[in-house]
């Protein structure tokens, strides 16, 4: 293990180290506020390591090409790839985590116990996420998946109430089932190819195959399907989506924010890398699978969301629907030239639309959860009916939540609008017009339940929960900012809200970065 190897995994290592350090600091420090500060400031470390890796690539994020910093003689060469793709997601994870920490300062302060552990576990889970974005080998992938999930399971059950315990338990059991499926799929793939690396599997797939069978062999077919279903747990996509609303409802809000944004993003990274590295010859096969999953996910998510009365459950179904939208981009696999012929490199269109959408979704969804965090801390309820008239008392949080919900519908000028155009255009280019049409119809349907929440907040009379909340100042010209609201929460909220809008206006650089990042995947040539 050389020094260079350490540099290659320094973002992950420093993240894990920071997690342990925070737990230790919690034992030593008496002022628990400092623990949060250590965690937040410490994130500069993984961030700067990720940035240092980025500077190794010409043109930073805006360049393109498949450079991999891991040399072939390194002990990491089989298990990790340090490329633009991985760094893109590592940066996304670190920034999301920093924002979540910022927003949850006052939340954690109010926790009855385990303040340090909260930060530590979040950091450890983030380590898993960063590993997942870079892993190129089945066992590493498995370790990353578990490392991501298990700390989150612990946090889900953090709160001393029954719905939190229920969330933790369901998360744990369904996670275990998914892990079992993932492992089963991996075992099949290993059995078929004799290799655990994605490159090795790809090599073995080049051999003789059974004509007329998807993926050319039963072992690979079952392996890929089962593994995809396992990953769908992390994507919160059909058919492994049923745990989502329960966990979103019961688990601590900051953890849900991280789960819905960072964990989901790296799961998509894993899926893209897995499919684009290992299974290039069968793009038509898995493209169809993902198209079907996308269609079912968005339809189920949106339909059930309509009937929800709890804002967190509603966002849980919304995240299922969004997993469906994003899967459209994964399914939109097209080769250069005409359609999905068997020759030629793949276009960047589909995968890069996924990356852009994930960034836009992160901004909008974090805004939504931060706003819910702030409002919940005042009115103490997640029921939509209790949000009645919330705008009159808590103007900025309500406005931000409205902005986030409008963004989630996909209304300009927000990042998700651009992202949706991008995704559906990719689908059309890959001859998946029906999927693009279904996506557009689903977006319209989703407006129904998002706007219902906005209407409640702005037009309905003040609910008992809002009236009873402790803020007595009347919002007016003079006091836009009601007193007693978490300043850190508002700061994080403002940042993400600005990003949400900014991504809808200055989307060029992010799209360029996404296109550069996906050229790291095998089979995709620089445009």
């Amino acid at each position, binding site marked *: 293990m050389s020094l260079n190897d350490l540099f290659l995994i320094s973002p992950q290592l420093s993240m894990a180290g920071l997690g342990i350090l925070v737990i230790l600091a919690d034992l030593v420090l008496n002022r628990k506020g400092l623990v949060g500060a250590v965690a937040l400031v410490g994130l500069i470390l993984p961030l700067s390591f990720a940035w240092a890796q980025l500077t190794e690539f010409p043109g930073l994020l805006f360049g393109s090409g498949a450079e991999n910093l891991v040399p072939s003689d390194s002990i990491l060469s089989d298990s990790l790839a340090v490329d633009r793709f991985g760094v893109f997601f590592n940066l996304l994870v670190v920034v999301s985590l920093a924002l979540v920490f910022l927003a949850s300062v006052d939340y954690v302060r109010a926790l009855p116990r385990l303040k340090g552990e909260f930060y530590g576990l979040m950091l450890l889970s983030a380590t898993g996420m960063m590993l997942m974005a870079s892993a190129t080998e089945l066992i590493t992938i498995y370790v990353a998946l578990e490392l991501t999930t298990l700390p989150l399971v612990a946090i889900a059950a953090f709160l001393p109430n029954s719905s939190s315990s229920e969330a933790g*338990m*369901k998360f744990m*059991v*369904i996670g275990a*089932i*998914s892990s079992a*499926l993932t492992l089963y799929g991996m075992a099949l793939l290993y059995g078929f190819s004799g290799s655990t690396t994605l490159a090795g599997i790809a090599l073995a797939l080049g051999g003789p195959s059974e*004509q*007329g*069978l*998807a993926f050319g062999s039963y072992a690979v*077919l*079952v392996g890929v*399907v*089962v593994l995809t*279903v396992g990953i769908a*747990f992390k994507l919160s996509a*059909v*058919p*492994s989506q*049923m*745990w989502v*609303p*329960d966990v979103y409802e019961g688990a601590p809000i900051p953890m849900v924010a991280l789960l819905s944004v960072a964990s989901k993003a790296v799961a998509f990274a894993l899926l893209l890398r897995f499919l684009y590295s290992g299974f290039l010859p069968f793009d038509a*096969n898995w493209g*169809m*699978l993902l198209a*079907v999953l996308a269609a079912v996910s968005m339809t*189920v998510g*949106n*339909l*059930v*969301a*309509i*009937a929800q009365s709890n804002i967190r459950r509603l966002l849980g179904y919304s995240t299922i629907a969004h997993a469906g939208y994003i899967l459209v981009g994964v399914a939109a696999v097209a080769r250069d030239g005409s359609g999905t012929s068997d020759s030629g490199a793949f276009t960047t269109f589909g995968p890069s639309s996924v990356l852009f959408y994930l960034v836009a979704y992160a901004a909008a969804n974090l805004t939504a959860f931060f706003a819910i965090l702030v409002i919940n801390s005042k009115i103490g309820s997640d029921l939509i009916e209790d949000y009645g008239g919330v705008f009159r008392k808590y103007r*900025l949080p309500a406005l931000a939540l409205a902005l986030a919900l409008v963004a989630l519908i996909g209304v300009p000028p927000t990042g998700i609008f651009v992202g949706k155009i991008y995704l559906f255009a990719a689908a059309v280019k890959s001859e998946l017009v029906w999927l693009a049409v279904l996506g557009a119809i689903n977006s319209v*349907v989703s407006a*129904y339940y998002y706007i219902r929440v906005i209407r409640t907040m702005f037009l309905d009379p003040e609910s008992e929960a809002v009236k009873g909340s402790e803020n007595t100042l009347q919002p007016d*010209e*003079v*006091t*836009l*900012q009601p007193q007693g609201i978490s300043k850190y929460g508002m700061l994080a909220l*403002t940042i993400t809200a600005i990003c949400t809008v900014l991504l809808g206006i200055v989307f*060029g650089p992010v799209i360029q970065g996404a296109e550069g990042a996906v050229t790291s995947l095998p089979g995709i040539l620089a445009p």
Partner: protein
Amino acid sequence: MVTEPLVWAIFFLPLLSFLLITLVIRPFFNRYAVVSGYLLILALAVSLALSLVVLRQHYGGAELDFEPHTWLNLGDVVIQMGLLLDPVTSIMLVVVSGVSLLIQIYSLGYMRGDPGVARYFAYMSLFTAAMLGLVLSVNVVQLYAFWELVGVSSYLLIGFWHDRPSAAAAAKKAFIVTRIGDVGFLLAIIYLAFHGPEFAAQGLNPLHIPDIWQAAQPLATGGAVLGGGALTLIALGIFAGAAGKSGQFPLHTWLPDAMEGPTPVSALIHAATMVAAGVFLVARFFPLFQQTQEAMTVVALIGGFTALGAATLGLVMDDIKRVMAYSTVSQLGYMMAALGIGAFGPALFHLFTHAFFKALLFLGAGSVNHASGTFNMRYMGGLRKHMPWTYALVLIAGLSLVGIIPLAGFWSKDEILTSAWVSGSTVDPWVYQAVFGLLIAGVLLTAFYTFRMIILTFHGDFRGGGARELEDAEESGLPRPSSVSEEVHLGESPRVMVLPMAVLGVAAILAGYVANPQWVKSFLLIPGHWFSYYVEAAVPFDHPKTPAFNWEVALISTAVALAGIVLAYLLYQFMGRKRTQTLEVPVEIGEPEGAGVAEPTLAAEGADGPSPLHGHEPVPVAPQRPEPLERGGPIYALLSRKYFMDELYEGLLVRRVFYRSFAALTDWFDRTLVDGLVDLAGSVCRNGGRVVAQLQTGQVQFYGAVIVLGAVLILVGYLAYSAGLGG
């Protein structure tokens, strides 16, 4: 050397001020809302300095061409954002940032004590940034975005006192009427965007403004990329947008109503800058207009017609700001007419001088309102004695507007008249003659309404101000006018308001001759006629040059203007005087304590002695005077109802034609077909959602079963699909 970031900073500084005020000051430090004014003033001062540097450098011949940046690449159509620096831009930058700076300083005094002062300066920042962005745009889409942003901020500012129904209605009217013109502009842009390939064949970008100029020029092989009927239609579409913003007939109806906003807003937006954006737009596409004589004729005639028509309306208005509003419409008509007859330089010169003296006139109106509590000239009079500075400055601005040598307005108006007089080959000869006739008649009316306004406001005896107007309104059972205040402080406005007016006054005197000296080779080191020559260099193609000074025209126009002044004097100064009686109503005299501070100083029951609050001497208050023009009978009625244009639009077009036929039809379509479909879709979704939600039982075992079942289903699907392939 000016670098690109420095030029962008001119636009970004006010924008930054907007962001800081809305995101930091308003939510968190509203107690220190006053800071927002100083913040904007600081930003504008730097912007002005940078604008002056840019002007100096550009005039010195520096190459200031910056490559545009690509914003969106749609294949055939590449939308870019960038800077277009030409003489028109650099002059406009100075005008916008300079006038805006002075008006913000004035606003510090005028808006003091208003609870929405931070909001006011936020909107003002947004407006100024949008206006600067508009002027700098190199791409039509970029320009259009700022064009609409200017419209939005104007809407916000007109409706600034949104609790007044009249202000809200005026804001809405302004927004809708200008939008009608914008449709034409948008159609022109869409036409350009859809003809990308034809432009690309010549290596041109259909949305890049210099490329559009180029496309309209004849090719060596004959024809042009843009030519014939299409060119005329595009030019007319652009002119429709310009006519909406610049209040040209028939889209002028919004501008007088827009005076519901705070007076500094009227000065900045509805006199000096935004309304000039229409003129700027036509000037920006001048090389395109030049190639189509039909469009030029339309521009010239509509401009001339508006110049005269708006002036007739200005004759009979009682509201001092409405007089000025019609005067603005009329002066914009002069500029449009000048552009229409190919007088590019004179049009922009008039835009330049007009910005100063008209802003000054509006600030004067604000100052007068500060003292008298009303904008109704019937309740003013005699203010000359109480506010000598305001009087002197308004007189200067008025003389400048009328076009009396050697004030600024004379030189620019004279250039326009001379261009029409000497004629040319841009349009048919009869158009030149018609335009000259319309404009010279306009000069007579301008002189008349300007001096009617000055005499009614400042001469004679004081007629009671806002307090009296409120009493009268009560007596006759009319609703209380919302913009009238019963506070009457007969005294000069605070220094912070007078100072910017004085600066504008100096500009209103000097901006004509000193900024653009005529007759001589150079004047005080300023090269003769530099402004016209410099501005004309903005048009890279052949076009008529600014004509030399013409004694005949100067004598005619001066004589006509003097005739108008004398007429006004005869009618108002002397005829009115005989009927004056004196009535004792106590009024506070002297400096108001703090501008805008609410303090009832005129008590209706205090008629028996000096005001108990201040103990000043009561002054005689003259009764109402009959309006001499009212003897015009039906003509007066026609004018005071603004040719029944509002009734025509509201009653006939909107209510009858639009509501009853078109809207009724769409309403039916919407209610029966669309709503039916939506209800159907809604109930399907809701019930479908309920059905699917039934599956969410909360049982973990069930969740796990779904996962496994899903995997199995997928596999079965694959096998069936493979079987289909194989067999």
